[in-house]
Structure formats: structure tokens, C-alpha cells
């Protein structure tokens, strides 16, 4: 069976984002971009299934500007076999992305559609669930463990306060949480090899999807800054302050 993995190009998680002063968005000029960390985990899981012989092919998909090719090359270096870029300058939102992913998953006849549980830029945590809704497939979200059991999957999900185990029929949509695995780094030889792997470019129109956003972002603002605190000289003062001033203990 084939697996598809959606990978998003986002501002690197170590970058302190800066909101543009006119509130129109986040400064991206000269900012380091990387693969969304949750997508790295999703990709790692798919590649491990390929290495175990469970999955025959791993297809990486990204959507957006042509610069997303970099993210796809990273995915190919980690172990994806080929890549598809849905190229568009539209402001892509989860509804359109999940619709396009569902079209691609059907076109490529994949059995497993992997995503990160959320992207660290819009923090929406929607795309996997919506793709599952469009496809009519079962969904295993926020996964901390995944086992293939013949025609089914046994998954463990991170839920508030613990874990939940589900049995899912294949095909299914799966979204990765932090504990699912520890993603590898691409080796230099694999980075070189990735340059020769196939990368197909399509447009939203090719997939029959209108990518226009339904949510209008009116403005983006910095959250209120924390007022500066004080230094305390010793533990006794700290305890006294927490007790009588902050009243939190």
C-alpha cells in the first residue's frame, strides 16, 4: 500500500516571529523556514513503514509558493520516494488544503494519509480531520503509536489526561503528535540523492479546487507584553512575595 505525507513550510520553530507594524502579517523576509515539526514526525512514521516493508511508496505533498520545493526536497532526503507540489500564490487555508489533499489521496490511490497534528504557524489543528471528513475515512489524530495489523491499524492517541486506543480500517487519515517517534536528520548522501527524485508540480485548478480563503484575517497583533518583574535576593523573600504579594501559594 501507498502512503502520502503532507508537509508544510513554516517559519522555523526557533525563530522569534515579528508581527509587521501595519498588522498585515508576520515578517517573513530573510527568516529561516523549515518543515513543520509535526510533519517531520508524520514523515518519519511513513518512512519507517516503508523500511519495514509495510508501505510500498511514500509520496510527499506540499502546497503553496514554489519555495515549498525546498521542503519537499527535505522530505525526499529523509526517505520519501517522490513529491507533489500544489503550486499557488493563494493564501491557503485548511479547508482548501484538506480538499486538495483528499483529491490527491484518491488520485494516487493511497491507503494511508499522514499529516502533523497541526502546523506551528496557524495552529489550526484541522487539516487531517477535514481531509478524513472529505474522504469518508476513519481518522487517527494526535497519535503517539501506530501499528499495522493486517487490514487494520491499531493506534494510540494523546487525549487530555491520558491515551486512547482505537482500531481503524484502512484507508485512514493519521496525524502525528510529538511522542510518535523521533525524526531522523537527512544524511548528506541522501540530500544529494533527493535532488534526482521526481517532483511533480500541479495547480489547484488541476485538482478542481478553488483555493480562495473563507476566513479573512483582518489583523495580526502582538499579544500584550508582560510587565517586567523583580529579582529576589533569596528563597525566603521569594516565598514571602508568592504568599503575600502574588497570593498564589
Amino acid at each position, binding site marked *: 500500500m501507498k502512503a502520502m505525507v503532507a508537509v508544510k513550510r513554516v517559519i522555523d*520553530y526557533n525563530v522569534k516571529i515579528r*508581527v509587521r507594524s501595519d498588522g498585515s502579517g508576520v515578517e517573513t523576509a530573510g527568516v529561516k523556514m523549515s518543515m513543520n515539526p509535526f510533519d517531520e514526525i508524520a514523515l518519519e512514521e511513513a518512512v519507517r513503514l516503508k523500511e519495514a516493508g509495510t508501505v510500498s511508496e511514500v509520496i510527499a505533498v506540499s502546497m503553496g509558493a514554489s519555495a515549498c520545493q525546498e521542503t519537499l526536497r527535505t522530505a525526499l532526503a529523509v526517505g520519501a520516494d517522490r513529491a507533489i507540489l500544489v503550486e499557488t500564490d493563494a493564501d491557503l487555508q485548511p479547508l482548501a488544503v484538506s480538499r486538495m489533499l483528499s483529491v490527491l489521496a484518491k488520485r494516487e490511490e493511497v491507503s494511508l494519509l499522514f499529516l502533523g497534528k497541526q502546523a506551528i504557524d496557524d495552529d489550526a489543528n484541522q487539516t487531517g480531520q477535514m481531509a478524513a471528513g472529505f474522504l469518508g475515512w476513519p481518522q487517527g489524530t494526535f497519535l503517539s503509536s501506530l501499528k499495522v495489523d493486517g487490514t487494520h491499524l491499531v493506534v494510540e492517541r494523546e487525549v487530555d*489526561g491520558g491515551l486512547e486506543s482505537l482500531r*481503524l480500517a484502512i484507508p485512514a487519515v493519521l496525524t502525528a503528535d510529538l511522542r510518535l517517534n523521533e525524526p531522523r536528520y537527512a544524511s548528506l548522501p541522501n540530500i544529494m540523492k533527493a535532488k534526482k527524485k521526481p517532483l511533480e508540480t500541479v495547480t489547484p485548478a488541476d485538482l478542481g479546487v478553488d483555493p480562495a480563503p473563507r476566513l479573512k484575517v483582518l489583523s*495580526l497583533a502582538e499579544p500584550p507584553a508582560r510587565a517586567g*518583574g523583580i529579582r529576589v535576593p533569596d*528563597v525566603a523573600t521569594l516565598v514571602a512575595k*508568592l504568599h503575600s504579594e502574588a497570593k498564589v501559594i
Partner: protein
Amino acid sequence: MAQLVLADHDGVTLRPATLNTVTAALALGPEVHILVAGSGVGSVAREAAAINGVSKVLTCDDERYRHLLPEALAPLIASVAGRYTHVLAPATTFGKNVMPRAAALLDVAPISEISAVVDASTFVRPVYAGNALATVQSADALKLITVRGTAFDAAGTGAGSASLESVPAADATEGASWLSEQMTQSARPELTAAKIIVSGGRGVGSRENFALIEALADALNAAVGASRAAVDAGFVPNDYQVGQTGKIVAPSLYIACGISGAIQHLAGMKDSGVIVAINKDEEAPIFQVADYGLVADLNKAIPELIDALKR
């Protein structure tokens, strides 16, 4: 038209975040209904009917909803949504799991984890792990929303006297079945629900030394967290991680021990009520967000702190 709140519950009682979601729904209009789906959920429905401001409880009591799987629940939400202007759920793992799936069935762009209501179609939501606040406007006639519980007060209970209406079950999507759950059996509170959190970073030094952090947490009846550096160093498991790629927390008191204050960690805890930093490096960025900073070796300061708390 009214607003519908999807109840999060464990089959016996409502999860508290449902009450905060009712408050967000009441900010959109005076008529708020609650949907309680599940199997044998009479007690949950009665509890929901007593929430102040709720005028009707829709119940759908059917075996297919026993474990609130989204494959069953999303079609039910879609079947009743036409009666409402807004459908809201708490941004718990339950709400986050089911609402986008329902949105796909309804062809609506859902709005995740709102922290404020501006008007009936305009909402504020944190993005970039809370490092920016986006004001978004929905163009859809129906709005599907998840609500960040810490951003709204809990609705009162006891004064409500909502009517009950049973709604028919909807066809579930096949293919998912529930096997089991393992809820964390810790005497300590859960990280995202704790009032006090004690977190350790790379400065704790070793896995063994993390016992100090745990001892302080126990002295305060607090949850234990960690920075990504501490997780990467193997001191604690991944699910302790507070930060942009870990858990986002907002306790009333956050005590950061041996944590330098990397951006990715600050993103996960800077909405805490009071932040205390204990670090021997007086230049550590954590001191810029701390209400109380103590420049000290945590190996000395934490035992002293535990002693002082016991007195």
C-alpha cells in the same frame, strides 16, 4: 436563531471546559442550546440543563456515540447544525478532533481555539503558539468554532432550567472502533489543567536530579513540566514538554528551574499568571518574562524552597 454548544463529557459528568464554551456562546446571542451525545448520558444531560443561560438540551442517546468517536459524531453535528448560527465546542482534544470533521461535511471553514468574540462573525485567536493574535472574520453563514477554555470564564450552574429534546441519531461513517483508554494515574495534576506547574530545564543536569523538580512539585501539589532541552537531554519523557511543539499551559503559578527561556519554551508558558525563574545564569532570557527572578543554584535553592513551604 440560536447557538449550539457541543458538550464534552466522560459519559457521567461534563468536562469543565464545556462551561467556558457556554460563556463564549452567550457572547454571541442570548439563546444557547447544548448537544449531549453519548450512550446512557442522562446524568450529563441533567447537568447541562442546569447551566445558567442554557435554554435547551438536545440529547442523542445511542450506543454509536458511547466513545464520542468523530466518525459517528460529525454526521450528527452536521444533521442539527442547520438550526443554528454557530456551533461551538471546547478546544479540548475531543473538540479539536470532531469539529473540523463536521466542518468538512458542512463545507465550512472552522475557526480554531478562539480567545475572544468581537462580533457574530469576527473572532480573535492566538497563532504562532500565542506569539501573535489574529482577528479573523468568517464568510460562512454557519460558524464552527472551538473555544480556548482559559480565555472565557466558566458559566455558572444551578440556576438553569433548560428543556430537553431528543434528536435522532445520524448515520455514522464506518471503520473506527474504540479499544481502550489509559488515563494517567498520577497523584499530580495534569499539566494542561494544573494551577501550579514546576518545570525543569537543561540546568537540572541529569535524569536523577529531576527528582528535585518532582519534590518541589509535590510540595506545591503542582504538575511537572520540562523544557525541550530537558526532554532532548533524556531527563524526562516527551509528554512533559512545555513549549511551542509541546503543551501550551497557563497556570496561576509557573516555576521555571534551570530553564534558560528559549523562544520555543516561552511560547508555551508566557500566559501563566505568575512566573518564577530560578537560574544561576543571571543573563538567562527567562528573567525577562519572570515576575520573580532568583539568581541561584537550583540544587541549593529548591531544597530551601521545599523547607520553607513545609513551614
